[in-house]
């Protein structure tokens, strides 16, 4: 029997397939090669009629099959319905491995599925591999990123969640038409006890900015106050960057929680991360140390942030940022010119 790796295809509130699915699908191809050429398949839980539309979106993921549970009660995420649908399908398909994104939804859903299936779940993995015995070796940070642990699972499916942006999606088109396989799950007997009354969407300019930004300018306690963050924002706008923050800055009320980078915030991997007045505590760096290039500005030349930075300037951000604002980045290939 062909082994299967099943990946949960989270549908966002705006009816997109969450990007983390494509990242997991790509990583899973690598795992599949080490697992007797296992099949990589998707698990989709959605309202009626959507699966066919999504087929196009799935083309790039390289998966073979989409197992679908369609029901109009599945329009918005509900722990109760989604757990039932996922558990029933997983019981039927019996995948070797089941992966989910460590999103709000994935973190709500995955532990319910694993408990119901009496299997293990490794959260927020930063590395996935198949060991010599054919087991999923899931590596994750613990103790706030200070210790890494590789975790194995005795039961099937071996489950893991991975944060968005930890793995990369397939680069070139890995086009493969997927078969849609409809599965019926009886949701009638579930008494729904949780009801969504209101939803207030964040402004679109705020969300996903950090997730998709090529450049991030992040501020910490060293930015001191609202004026400091204004300066930071001005600089970020100038170079076309999104603004991030350390937890200290969030706790001081200078930035909102969704701007926080780190263990209890977001994991980001921009081309360039510019840390301003951030000391570089491990809980912060774990969320940004995979950025392609890191630049740090800090008045303390011994600050740990410099240990992971490519370039550093030891000095006062309140002097350096206004100075930097005098240089104007023109188009992509132009060099910086000092304004008259």
């Amino acid at each position: 029997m062909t082994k299967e790796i099943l990946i949960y295809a989270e549908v966002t509130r705006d009816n997109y397939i969450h990007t983390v699915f494509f990242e997991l699908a790509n990583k899973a191809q690598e795992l599949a090669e080490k697992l007797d050429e296992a099949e990589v398949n998707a698990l989709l839980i959605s309202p009626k009629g959507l699966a066919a539309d999504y087929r196009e979106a799935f083309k790039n993921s390289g998966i073979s099959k989409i197992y679908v549970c369609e029901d109009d009660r599945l329009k918005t995420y509900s722990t109760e319905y989604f757990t039932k649908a996922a558990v029933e399908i997983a019981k039927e398909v019996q995948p070797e491995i089941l992966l989910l994104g460590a999103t709000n939804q994935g973190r709500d859903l995955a532990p319910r599925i694993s408990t119901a299936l009496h299997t293990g779940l490794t959260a927020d993995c930063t590395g996935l591999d198949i060991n010599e015995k054919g087991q999923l070796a899931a590596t994750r940070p613990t103790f706030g990123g200070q210790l890494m642990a590789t975790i194995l699972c005795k039961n099937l499916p071996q489950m893991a969640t991975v944060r968005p942006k930890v793995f990369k999606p397939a680069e070139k088109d890995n086009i493969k038409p997927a078969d849609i396989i409809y599965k019926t799950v009886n949701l009638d007997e579930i008494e729904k006890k949780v009801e969504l009354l209101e939803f207030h969407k964040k402004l679109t300019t705020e969300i996903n900015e950090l997730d998709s930004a090529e450049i991030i300018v992040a501020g910490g306690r060293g930015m001191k106050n609202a004026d400091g963050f204004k300066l930071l924002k001005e600089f970020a706008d100038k170079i076309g960057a999104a603004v991030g923050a350390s937890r200290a800055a969030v706790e001081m009320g200078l930035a909102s929680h969704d701007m926080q980078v780190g263990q209890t915030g977001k994991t980001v991997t921009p081309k360039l991360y510019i840390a301003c007045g951030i000391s570089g505590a491990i809980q912060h760096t774990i969320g940004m140390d995979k950025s392609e290039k890191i630049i740090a500005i800090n008045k303390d030349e011994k600050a740990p942030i410099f240990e992971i930075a490519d370039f550093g300037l030891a000095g006062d951000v309140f002097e350096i940022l206004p100075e930097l604002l005098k240089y104007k980045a023109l188009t992509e290939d132009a060099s910086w010119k000092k304004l008259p």
Partner: protein
Amino acid sequence: MKIVVCIKQVPDTSDIKWTENNTIQREGLESVMNPYDVYALEAALKLKKSYDNIEITTLSMGPLQAGDMLKKTLALGVDNAILLSDRKFAAADTYATGKTIGTAIKQKLPDFDLIICGQFAIDGDTAQTGPSIANTLNIPQVTYIQEIISSENGELKVRRELDDGTEIVKVKLPALICMLQDYFEPARARINGIIKAQNSEITTYGLDDIGLLPEEAGLRGSPTYVSKAFRPEPKNTECVFVNSAEELAEKIQICKGGKND
């Protein structure tokens, strides 16, 4: 209303020291109440202030020393405290922890209305134990809660903070909720609370008391196990220090990918 607050004692992760063999030095490591569980406890105490007939039980699974932490909760106005402590509970993963705590609640506090957990524990940071307890008890759960808005007619109204926005959600009790954070000052023990706490007893249960089998708890009852633990490789970059904003501007331009020379 009967509330159970699940509290974990965790090592203070901001103060980790290493042995020569790159393992965590456990001796002398301070233990603290998991910060998110402080929020969970605060949320329960706030409900008790706002509504009549609320009884709070704090529950922890861990070594006997976690009893001291539970005693402190009694000083804050908690009514009862339960410690689940047994060698056979040791080294449990989130599945086994959820099962042990869930079973203990089913056995010893069957008429509970609300279980409050923290969203994460800072040592493991899995955010899995709450949902696992809820699944074991077959009750609904609501995660990522920033605020309990009200509790009426056997229903709780809460505010969830998610990456894409804010949800207001209603849940029928009994249920389990996970607290992300709330905006309040940590309560301080009142003097009479402290005196009461010193004279109070923590109820301790072991494996047999809650009717679990040895193969259902601790390491044996855990589907996952750690095969290797290691210290992360330090990033191999040598920071190049520049001396002026001008030089830095140039480096920024290069890193942006605009100019490669």
